């Protein structure tokens, strides 16, 4: 069977595994994706005659709770990687499921937030503020879902990978973690920009 090159050992010229360089290049493109939408936010805000204070329309306690949930999921993700570094598969799996669980809590809170808005007749078409709010948080939510799918996959299918080549699984989980922390990082900016300013 063909072995993938430089997925366990770093490539001599870059000093990195191909997977790590790949995920960082992908994250760079993600920065530009969200950057474009943040630019749209600035354009709408400075171009509009008025701009609401997010806290008057949105639920700050719910969003604060969700911020704490995402930050906690980042620590469980990094602990899953640390457990793999120690070759402790049971602990790794526990932290991975905890991360997915916290992702689910985040999505549930978001569901209540969205349904409350829609119930009050506040749609993306209601105002430019709500349009950019739904666009930015919706795109972010898609990223949370994508991250949860990958984390669930490695939590369930990781055992055979661990038996075959534990360092390869450790690297893959580190790369998954990089994506998950990026999703957390985007929320760290979305929260004050949309809810508090």
């Amino acid at each position: 069977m063909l072995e993938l090159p430089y997925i366990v050992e770093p490539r001599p010229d870059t000093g990195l595994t191909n997977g790590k360089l790949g995920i960082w290049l992908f994250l760079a493109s993600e920065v530009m994706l969200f950057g474009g939408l943040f630019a749209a936010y600035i354009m709408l805000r400075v171009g509009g005659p008025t701009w609401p204070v997010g806290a008057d329309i949105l639920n700050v306690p719910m969003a604060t709770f969700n911020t704490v949930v995402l930050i906690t999921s980042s620590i469980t993700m990094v602990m899953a990687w640390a457990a793999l570094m120690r070759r402790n598969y049971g602990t790794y799996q526990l932290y991975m499921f905890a991360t997915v669980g916290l992702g689910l809590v985040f999505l549930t809170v978001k569901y209540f937030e969205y349904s409350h808005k829609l119930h009050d007749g506040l749609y993306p078409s209601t105002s430019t503020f709500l349009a950019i709010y739904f666009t930015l948080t919706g795109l972010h939510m898609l990223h949370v879902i994508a991250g949860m799918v990958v984390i669930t996959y490695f939590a369930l299918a990781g055992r055979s990978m661990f038996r075959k080549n534990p360092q390869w699984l450790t690297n893959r989980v580190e790369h998954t973690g990089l994506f998950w922390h990026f999703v957390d990082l985007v929320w760290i900016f979305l929260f004050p920009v949309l809810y508090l300013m």
Partner: protein
Amino acid sequence: MSNHAEEMDRHIRTYLLVFGSLIVLTLITVASSQFLHLPIGPHIAVALIIATIKATLVACFFMHLISERKLIMAVLGLTVFFFFVLLLVPAMTALSHETGH
């Protein structure tokens, strides 16, 4: 205990410290926006400065940027540059509207 295990213990202590800092900074952000009643300019500045500190902590420690290779730094440096160019475009548009040029 081996050196590797000791090193991981040290890493985990750092992660927990960063986690605690992130929670405290989140509460400070919310408290400052709810109770300080600053004018809009300083209010935005405080919120963005705290968010940047939090993002730096996540990137440096959870994403291991603090000990990462130069190539990743180069990729990120380029990304950050273009990110600010992207943000500058609407800001300059707004400025030209205000000055009428």
